[in-house]
């Protein structure tokens, strides 16, 4: 596992514990509670982080081993 993945996940987990806005009762567009919108942002940030992880820190050796396995199966 690459350290960059751990750094991203660690950062997301810290941002997830949003104690500083516990009592924030602001409504976004008068309809969406602030805490809900913030945590939806965390969900989207997680998806972007995983996109980066699969793009730049993917364990390529697993692809090679599964290719080799497929070839073995075909032969």
């Amino acid at each position, binding site marked *: 596992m690459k350290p960059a993945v751990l750094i991203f996940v660690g950062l997301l987990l810290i941002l997830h514990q949003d104690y500083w806005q516990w009592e924030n009762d602001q409504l976004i567009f008068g*309809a969406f509670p602030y*805490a809900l919108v913030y945590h*939806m942002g*965390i*969900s989207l940030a997680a998806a972007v982080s995983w996109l980066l*992880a699969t793009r730049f820190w993917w364990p390529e050796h697993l692809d090679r081993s599964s290719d080799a396995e497929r070839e073995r199966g075909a032969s």
Partner: protein
Amino acid sequence: MIQLWMIIGYLALLLGLGFAASRFFRGTATDYMLASHTIGPVLLLMSLFGTTMTAFALVGSTGAAYRAGIGVYGELASASGIVHSLCFFVIGLPLWAVGRRHGYTTQIQFFRDRLQSDLLGLLLFPILVLLVVSYLLVGIVGGGAVVNSITAGAFESSGWFATAGHGVPSWLASAVICGVVLLYVFFGGMRGTAWANAFQTAVFMVLGLVTFVTIANALGGTDRFLENLQIATQAAESSHLTMTKMPRAVFFSFLFIPLSVAMFPHVFQHWLTARSAQSFKLPIIMHPVFIMIVWMPCVLLGVWATGESSGVPAALDGMGPEKFNKVLPTLVKLHAGEVLGGLLSAGILAAIMSSLDSQFLCLGTMFTEDVVRHYGGRERYSDAQVVRLARYFVVGMVALTYLLSLMLPGSVFTLGLWSFSGFTGLVPLVFAAVYWRRLTAAGAVASVITTVGCWTALFIRSFIRSDIKPYTFPEQPFPVAGIVSIPKMLPVVTIFAAAAAALVVVSLLTPRPDQKTLGKFFSS
């Protein structure tokens, strides 16, 4: 009555899908249990997501938001978005690779081989089966409650089922749901399960959004959607619109609950169906977004339901803890038309059944692979006999689980938490098995025994201290050396920490594992 017919129609459709999948069955045990490793990225995304979203996600989240407010989304949905994908990436991928290389079908096969310990397999089998059964109960209880609430009053003219509000009684609804899922798993195996999961995931995601829009419009009562959202939110209890109902330390400890996915036997089985490592990319990226699409509407609906104008507080007045399971179906019944109500109930059932099927199948797989073939000999049974035995075991376990569900009227959310806590206690084991060369069989056994001991003690204690809701451990802040104080947290933190400590300490105190075995699992 229309709703009842729509539910029946949906169940018939699922049966048809299971039978269609059975036409592709290749007759081998690998095909029945792992769909011959042919599942690509889209089907893997849909089936993994459908499997992890249960009654806990739909019925449970709405009920929990009704009780504790908007914080429920952060507590589980955004946390799961981070942690589930982390588990797929960090645990799922390596296990898929090792499973393909050595031909594993179950987690126990991996652990037995990795730690050269038959005892560990013997210990894990009943524990995993019991935890899966407790997880199954979440779906069966939730499904019965939904159908009962939605169909209430359908039999008023005939006078049937008066004690169940003239709706289909929960016990009957649960039995029919079990029967339908059992049939398509029975005939379709893993392929039928993956197809049904993908179909049901699409159904519950689309219908969930339709429910959200329909109920928002009904609660608002104007022609403008945004205005309706504003009216619905502003009518809710103000304390439910902030995180104040959520104790901070309990919120933190909820981060441990989604870790459980790393030890779900049915998720392991789905991982192994992947055609290639590349198939994992889409599920890893999209899982947090899919969770958001399902949970955001459910949590907001639960919060809206707290407003007197929703009619839900009056409808649920005087009920016990089971009322939290009825929040979503009551909203649907009060605010969606009959046809839409029927469709939406089918959507809720879709989410519930898309987990039940994988859990049923994994029970059969574990029994045949970890008990029958392991102790009886791999060559002794033909593939046809193995598939037949898997089917019989599943039928037996489902019947037993169904009977248990009749004695268990608790909240789906609480029930789910205890099941997930047990699985999370086993996560240090799987993580160490993948990444730590120094892990020994004794360390693994000690970790499993510690998990069981802690889980049982705290579970029993939660009944004694029924005044603490949700049950926390420590039950009161616990001072350490007069400097810091350990706050009240979910029991899962204690279970996880104790299991990890036992694993590390006992592994370090016992002789190093055999180099030849390590060579099978770690590159030099």
